[in-house]
Each structure stands twice: as C-alpha cells, then as structure tokens.
C-alpha cells in the first residue's frame, strides 16, 4: 500500500530544488563542523561543493548499478531498486565527505538483499568485491546499523516493477494494443535509467511505471493515450489527469538526463580531493578510526570487566554472609 507507506509519508519530495536544498544543508553542516579555523577561500579549496558531491553520488550510483548487474548469484531487480532508494536517501541527509559513498554503496546493497529477501551470506556477498574481502565485510557490517539509523528504519520500499506488471496485465485485458509484450524491453531500459535520477524520490512508483510504459510505446510508434484517458482514468479520474500528464512528462525529461555522466578526469580529481577532505573518523584506513574502534572494543571490555568484578563481589559477600547466631 504505497499511499499509507513510510515512503509516501517521509521520503517523497516536492521538487528537485527541495532535494538540492537538503543536500546543500548537509554539505554546509559538515563544512561548519570540520572547517573550524579555516578562512573561506581555503574552505572552498579544501571541501567539496554541493555540486561536486552530487557528481560523486552520481558516479557511485552508476557504480552501484554495474556492481548489481555483475553480482553473483544474479539478484532480482527489486534489490537493485531498493538499494538505489537507500543510497539516495542516505545522501540527502549526509555529506559525501562524512561517509565515503564507496562504503555506503555496498552497505546499501547488502541491506537491500536482506530486506528484499534475497538471501546471501556476507561471505557470498563480499566474494563479488575485489580487494581485501575481510576488510570489506567489516566495513559493511559496521555501517549497516548506521545506514538503517539514517534511514529512520524506514526499510520498506515500493519499487515500480510490480506496477509495470499490473499495467501490462491491464493493457492486455482492457486495452486495444497489439501484443503489449513488445513494450517490455523499452520499459525495462527506461526503468534502469530512471533510477539514476531523482524521479523515484519525487513521483509515486505507479507514476514512474506508467511513464516507462508510455515511453516504450512511443518508441514503438504506438499510442496509449486513449487507454490512459478512457480506460485507466475513466470518468472519476478526468480532473486528475493533468497531474499525471505533468508527472509523466517530468519523469521522461529527467530520464533523458540520466546519461549525463561526468568526465572521467574530472571525477579523478574529485576523488583525490575527497580522499583529502573526508572525515577521518569514518575512514577505516585512518589511525583515528582504528583508535576509535579500539576504544569502543576497550569500552566493551571495561564494561564486561566491571560487571564481572561486581558479580564477584556480590558472590563473595553472599558466601561469607554470617548466619545470625542465637544469643
């Protein structure tokens, strides 16, 4: 039920401007917190700007898509959709400089696997990652709770895949289109690209699905307008049609921008910049991070020790307790 979901209540935004504003806020907050004692030009040079952050997020979104496609065992589409949602939601509230998107990306996918009931163990999961697998597993498991917390534990995601199936069934039953199965390929391509845009944070999954189907139809030089206006919306939906037309138009125009992948050399310079300005407390390679983790471990140990000592004392006092002798 999308209209009653947490997705509809808390994670649908009115426009791209609102999203960008929120991202800017996160960026500013980070710079203010970690840029104390720096003058403004220095800050500008040292930290990433909101736009640069966006480029990084985009880069890792593409990375996420490719990683999921290559994933073994092959994962269902809804896992990919859900991980995209998590990833986007996370960087609405957090700065790229605070948590590195590379780490958050794999954590998102791992969490999405669990939520969408695609059962892989952490060993199976990290087998898809190049490099130090043990370290990767550590990073994922350490970040998992953080990620869920940042998502406010709103883990249920409504993806546009089932609505596409529903619309296809409806078109086959009530529409007049010849062989609607032809639409499937175009729809899938469209959906794949739409996940790289902010459309999924602005429009309902059913709207995205309808836009995908209409896009596929127009590519095949078919026209589904009469189906939408007469069959789908019918009598009661006439006055709501304008909203939908706007939404579909916006989604399709956003999808066209999905291909705007940034220049590779530009990305490389940004990566280097990020490596310098990222928050060392959350960098698993930094000394600070290691110290912090060690401190956490020690804290646990201390707590454990304190408890055992306490118990020991309690036991001792109980054993040496004197039975009040009769006078």
């Amino acid at each position, binding site marked *: 039920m999308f209209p009653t979901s947490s997705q509809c209540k808390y994670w649908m935004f009115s426009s791209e401007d609102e999203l960008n504003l929120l991202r800017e806020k996160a960026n500013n907050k980070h710079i203010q917190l970690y840029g104390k004692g720096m003058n403004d030009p220095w800050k500008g040079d040292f930290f990433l700007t909101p736009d640069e952050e966006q480029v990084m997020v985009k880069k890792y979104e593409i990375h996420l898509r490719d990683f999921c496609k290559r994933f073994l065992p092959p994962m269902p589409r809804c896992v990919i959709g859900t991980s995209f949602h998590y990833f986007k939601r996370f960087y609405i509230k957090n700065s790229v400089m605070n948590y590195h998107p590379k780490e958050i990306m794999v954590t998102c996918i791992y969490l999405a696997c669990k939520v969408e009931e695609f059962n892989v163990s952490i060993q199976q999961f990290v087998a898809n990652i190049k490099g130090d697998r043990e370290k990767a597993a550590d990073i994922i498991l350490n970040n998992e709770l953080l990620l869920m917390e940042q998502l406010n534990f709103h883990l249920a995601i409504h993806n546009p895949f*089932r609505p596409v199936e529903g619309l296809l069934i409806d078109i086959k039953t009530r529409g007049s289109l010849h062989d609607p199965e032809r639409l499937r390929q175009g729809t899938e391509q469209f959906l794949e690209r739409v996940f790289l845009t902010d459309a999924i944070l602005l429009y309902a999954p059913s709207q995205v699905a309808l836009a995908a189907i209409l896009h596929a139809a127009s590519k095949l030089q078919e026209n589904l307008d009469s189906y939408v206006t007469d069959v789908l919306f019918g009598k009661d939906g006439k006055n*709501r049609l304008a909203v939908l037309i706007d939404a579909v138009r916006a989604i399709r125009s956003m999808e066209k921008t999905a291909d705007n992948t940034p220049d590779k050399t530009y990305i490389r310079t940004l990566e280097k910049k990020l490596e310098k300005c990222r928050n060392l407390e959350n960098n698993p390679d930094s000394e600070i991070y290691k110290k912090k983790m060690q401190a956490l471990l020690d804290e646990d140990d201390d707590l454990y020790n304190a408890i055992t000592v306490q118990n020991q004392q309690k036991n001792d006092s109980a054993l040496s307790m004197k039975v009040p002798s009769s006078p």
Partner: protein
Amino acid sequence: MDDFACPRCRTTKFQNPSLKMMVNVCGHGLCESCVDLLFLKGSGSCPDCKIPLRRNNFRVQLFEDASVEKEVDIRKRVLRDFNKKEEDFATLNEYNDYLEEIETIIYNLTNNIDVINTNKRIEQYKKDNRELIQKNKGRLGREEYELEELLEIEKQMNVARKHEILLEETETKKKRIKRKEALIDELMFSNSDAKNIVESFAQQAKEEEEEEINKPLPTKITKFSSGIEFGRQSQITFLPVPTDDGPLYCYTPVVFDPDGPSPPVNEEVVQNGFMNHIRCETEQERAGGFKTNIACLRALQESMMGLYHTSRKLIV
C-alpha cells in the same frame, strides 16, 4: 499386611480375616486372642522382651511397624511433661533447641540408647519445671473448657430454634382451625349468599398465607460454631486491582484510499479475463495460499495506487 502373623500363635490375616493385632508400650505385637489368653489376670510379661505389662494398656495396632506404635506411646508420655509452648521462650532459637531436645529423648527411648541417663534427664526436667508443667496443663484445660462452652451454647441455640419452629407450626394450625370454625359459623348464621361467603374466606386465607411468606427470614448466621465470623479471611485478601476504565473503544472502519483510479475488485479480476495474462499458480504455491487472483489483484492495485500523487509539501 497379608503375610503378617501373630508372633506367638502364628495366626495370619489369611487364616483369620478378623485378626486384630494389639500392641503395648514395649512395641511388640500380639493378636487379640493371645492377649486374652496371656493377660487373663490383668497383668503379665511380654513374651518377646519379658517386660511387665498391663492388659488395659493394649491398643489396636494402627501402623504396620510395631516400633512406630512404640514411638507414638513414648511420645505421648514424654509430651505430657514437656508441654512448653512457643510463648514460653524468649527467642525462636531457644524454642527450636527445646524441640530438638524432646526429639532426642524420644529417639533414645525408642531405640534403647542410654535409657538410664535419658530417664534421669526427664526427671531432672520435671523437677526443674514442675510449676510450669502444672500451669501449662491447666492452660490446656482452660482451652478445652472454652471449646466445650462454645459447643454448649450452640446446643442451646439449636434447642431454642427447634422450639420456635414447633411453636410456629402449632400457631398456624390453630389459625386454620379458627378460620374453619368462623366460616361454618358464618354459613350457619349469616343471610348472605353461601357462595360469596366461601369465596371471601378463601381470599382471606390466601392473603394471610402470603403475608406469612413475606415475613422476613430469620437473621442469617454470621458465625461459625467456633465463634469465628464468616468471611473473616476476606479481610486479609487483597483489594481488586483498580482498573482504569478509559473511554470505550469505538471501531471506525478502515477507509481504503488508493490515491489513484479505483482498481478492479476481486470478482472483476476473476471474471473479466485479467487472469488470462498472468502465469497460473503452481501446486505448491496454491498449497501456500498464493493464488493467481491474489497476485493479479496486487499487481493491478499497485499499478493504480498513487497515480494521483502530488507532493504538496512546501520547501522548508
């Protein structure tokens, strides 16, 4: 118990079903007929241990093990003197020590351990506590006396109640006879219609009877015969936990707002051929309750829910 036999005449329960085993202070059993035979003169010695016994000390054996009977006997005797109560001691520990001592004495006497010394101990105790023993005996007597008094009162009340009932019965009988006589007199001397007279008398009788029924019942008994009031325990029980009765729950039906065109309902899905375009469920899926129409319905609902969606949120 079946193979239990009298140690003297070897009669068993099987041979004589009415066999009665008797026992005396020494704890050695004898059957009834043997007791009759041996203690013809009223006293004699136990055939087992040669202890002099008296005939009237023989009792019916209650426990299979005769030594238990012996212990019971000894206990009775010892407790006659060791009759202190808990209130006679300053602390619980002292009382417990005292009880421990009693048990030791009883055990010693039953098992013939150090009998001389133990008897000396008893004598010493008696000497030391003569006054207290007498007092406690008296106290026991007083308690018994009070109980008897209560019983007596109860008996008297019973008698009184019976008397009352009897009185009432004779009263009603008298009344009835009087009424009959009045009716006959009336019939004899009155000039009015006989039928009317009979009727009015019958009505009067009925009214009187009803009145009797409506008489208040005798006051309820609120005491046990022991003088403890009914429901005394209820004072100890806890009060019921106060429940906070908030406003009553009011059911409001769930309204389903699809925020889009209303999707087809189940019957339409089944009848209008929607299901021709979806894979039929496998046998396992059907066993799990995942039927085609449900999956089809869900897909259709999800495709239409939220189609009207617009974010009316303002930019913060």
